[in-house]
């Protein structure tokens, strides 16, 4: 057995109030793919940032090629041949593809005093072309990045990681935004890299990926190292148990609610670039699950329903009456509210206190002659935050001081206070801890019980299967299938969502 090229030993990383990494170990071996497994908040992305020099560890040591090393900046780790494809796109929209690939590592013309001062643009283009064709990415090195699609940008990110003579390649959830076809190309690429003897760290949620690609695994939970081993010696149930320290059968508190008459009817909703021919209906007491990969257009459809998107055609009916929605205000007035995926960006004003966030959509109703009724605001906030069990020291605490789960509860409280008829939840449990997750699920059941209708957008399969009465599957801006609760199986949903066999 060859020895690890890159190891972390007892590495810790502390943020004010939180120990993000608590003495974790990780070993990467040349020519092997190691899968890093853990739930949201297990410390995976902190780990990636520590490995690439973005964060400096507060304890423990990093060992590269048998020698302890210290990374003071991303530059240091880059210089040793450690490259990462980050989860979020960390690219430059206004620069060319070629420059995006080589930024930080420009090819220089050789010659007198030109070492630092003479970027060799033609060599850069040629090399970029070479790398791009080696990964089957069809684009010109001279294109401006802004003109590319998300999938293409992702390929640029991969090309960037391959542009240096990498010894360690870190892939942080690389398949989240890719189509079925692109994922298979990526798998081949990973296999090629493995054959070239590179050490690969593959971070993912998806178990099928772990079992097709990885040789080894390491599991983290809540910032702590749980265990590692060979993939061939384990199975899915064992891994899940290590991840969450509970049995695989997660319980979803789905209540049987009597389904009422049709509330919302959407027919042939179209947008020039983002989605087409979206038609569905929603009944009282129903939870409609919408599943699709990131970038499949599901969020765009929901935002169109909420009135934030321009140039949308088609019709929306509430209670059989056609409604026109061009702004969130009109959506709210018609009883449609939207809990966005980007909670901190779109859902909530972090710097304002809880009660002001809750009252924000209906200030005018609460005010007398434009003057704020603070008592009324407080009463409203108290009523709904208590119902949702928001944990806070007082209702005028700033929302930024709450945990992610409690922030999400404040967003939901804000919308419930407007007495909506339809509530759209976009990735309602993304990035919140397990306890709050269960609370949100439980609350969804309560909501439909009280006569609301819920649309839940999610990319977490168990959540979709566990909570929905009906499931819509989207791919590339189209609804590609509709499954009832009893018909839906994980295989059917995933194959529809990745553009596999279209069975309907």
């Amino acid at each position, binding site marked *: 057995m060859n020895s690890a090229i890159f190891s972390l030993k007892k590495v810790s990383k502390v943020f004010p109030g939180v120990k993000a990494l608590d003495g974790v170990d990780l070993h990467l071996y040349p020519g092997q793919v190691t899968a890093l497994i853990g739930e949201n908040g297990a410390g995976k992305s902190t780990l990636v940032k520590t490995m690439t020099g973005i964060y400096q560890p507060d304890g423990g040591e990093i060992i590269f090629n048998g020698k302890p090393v210290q990374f003071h900046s991303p530059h240091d780790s880059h210089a040793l041949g450690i490259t990462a494809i980050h989860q979020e796109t960390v*690219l430059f929209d206004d620069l060319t593809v070629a420059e995006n690939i080589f*930024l930080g590592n420009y090819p220089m013309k050789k010659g007198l005093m030109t070492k630092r001062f003479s*970027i060799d643009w033609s060599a850069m283009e040629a090399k970029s072309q070479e790398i791009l064709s080696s990964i089957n990415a069809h684009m010109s090195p001279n294109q401006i990045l*802004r003109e590319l699609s998300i999938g293409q940008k992702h390929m640029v990110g991969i090309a960037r990681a391959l542009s240096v003579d990498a010894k360690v390649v870190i892939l942080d959830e690389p398949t989240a935004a890719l189509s079925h076809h692109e994922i298979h190309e990526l798998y081949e690429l990973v296999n090629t890299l493995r054959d070239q003897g590179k050490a690969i760290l593959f971070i993912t949620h998806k178990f099928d990926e772990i079992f097709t690609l990885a040789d080894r695994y390491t599991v983290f939970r809540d910032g702590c190292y749980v265990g590692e081993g060979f993939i061939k010696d384990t199975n899915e149930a064992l891994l899940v148990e290590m991840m969450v320290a509970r049995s695989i059968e997660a319980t979803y508190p789905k209540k049987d609610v009597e389904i009422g008459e049709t509330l919302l009817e959407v027919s042939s909703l179209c947008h020039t670039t983002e989605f087409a021919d979206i038609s569905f209906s929603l009944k009282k007491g129903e939870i409609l699950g919408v599943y699709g990969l990131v*970038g499949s257009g599901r969020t765009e459809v929901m935002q169109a329903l909420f009135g934030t998107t321009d140039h949308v055609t088609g019709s929306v009916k509430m209670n059989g009456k056609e409604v026109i929605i061009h702004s969130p205000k009109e959506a709210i007035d018609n009883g449609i509210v939207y809990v966005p995926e980007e909670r901190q960006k779109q859902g909530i004003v972090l710097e304002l206190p809880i009660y002001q966030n809750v009252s924000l959509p209906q200030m005018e109703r609460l005010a007398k002659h434009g003057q704020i009724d603070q008592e009324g605001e407080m009463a409203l906030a108290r009523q709904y935050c208590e119902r949702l069990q928001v944990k806070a020291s007082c209702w005028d605490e700033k929302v930024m001081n709450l945990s992610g789960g409690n922030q999400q509860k404040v967003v939901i409280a804000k919308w419930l206070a407007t007495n909506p008829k339809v509530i759209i939840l976009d990735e309602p449990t993304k990035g919140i801890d397990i306890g709050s997750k269960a609370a949100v699920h439980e609350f969804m059941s309560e909501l439909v019980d009280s006569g609301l209708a819920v649309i839940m957008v999610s990319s977490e399969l168990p959540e979709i299967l566990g909570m929905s009465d009906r499931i819509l599957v989207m791919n590339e801006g189209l609804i590609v299938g509709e499954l009832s609760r009893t018909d839906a199986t994980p295989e059917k949903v995933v194959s529809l969502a990745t553009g596999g066999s279209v069975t309907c």
Partner: protein
Amino acid sequence: MLKRLIYSREGVLSIIVLTMFFGVGVISPDFISLSNSVSIFNDTSILIMLALGQMLVILTRCIDLSVAANVAFTGMFVAMVNQYFPELHMALLIFLSLFIGALLGAINGLFVWLLKVPSIVITLGTMSIYRGATFLLSDGAWVNSHQMSESFIGLPRYEILSMPVLGWMAVVTIVLFFWAMKFSVWGRNFYSAGGNPMAAFYSGVNVGKVQFYAFLVSGTLSGLCGYLWVSRFAVAYVDVANGFELQVIAACVIGGVSIVGGLGTVVGCVIGALFIGVVNNALPIIGVSPFWQMAISGLVIIIAVIANASSGKDKARIILRNPNANDEIRAN
């Protein structure tokens, strides 16, 4: 390729400037003579140099309002040094102006780099301080031409190949900038640090340091322009270049430097400055009162940013694969 050049921002802008230039030439043929062209360029030299420095700052998502005050302070400083030590060599004085300018720029840069405070506030503050310091330095007195040495006044006017040294300094600055912004890692870092600071950091670029360099360069050029200004107008006083910072920013904006950072070219910036220069020089010739000049440059700034805003709109992410839909996008 040619098509792309014409449709590019710099292309459109050069066509407008050239049309204006030759348009005025139709009315008054003297205007487009070589000597007048050189003189327009020479008149615009200081604006060009300051605009290039400002471009670096704006590229990194900052703004430098203190340039004009820097010009005034450094100008006064070197003028007084010249007044009291007329024997001092000119090379030393120029070095001194570069040094003082760099120092004042570095103060701005350090605040932005180390404390990460908004540059607009810092430079608003240093703008008052530098201008006030100019007063303290001179006690409100003027340094007039007869108190300056001959070489102090003569240097920018000395002609090489029928262009004054002042113009040549601008040429050298333009060439240096063009090369640095295209071929040096140092120059490219301004684009990455301003275009996407987070991604730049991930790529090993120290964003704060890049911002510091931007202020340093802007300050250094302001220092040099301080000497050039005082020498060209043969007088130094507290209110030198008062309000000029806004013309400098205007030149950048007209030249297509995006105020949100990461976008802008040396060529665009120079043409933006030349635009203002040509308008200033053309108005008296076509018989329009010079009082129109300010309104025209205001109008041009507004038109330029509106044009920018409608061409550079974020394209929606394209999800549909439907070819018809894609055709529609191309048609737009």
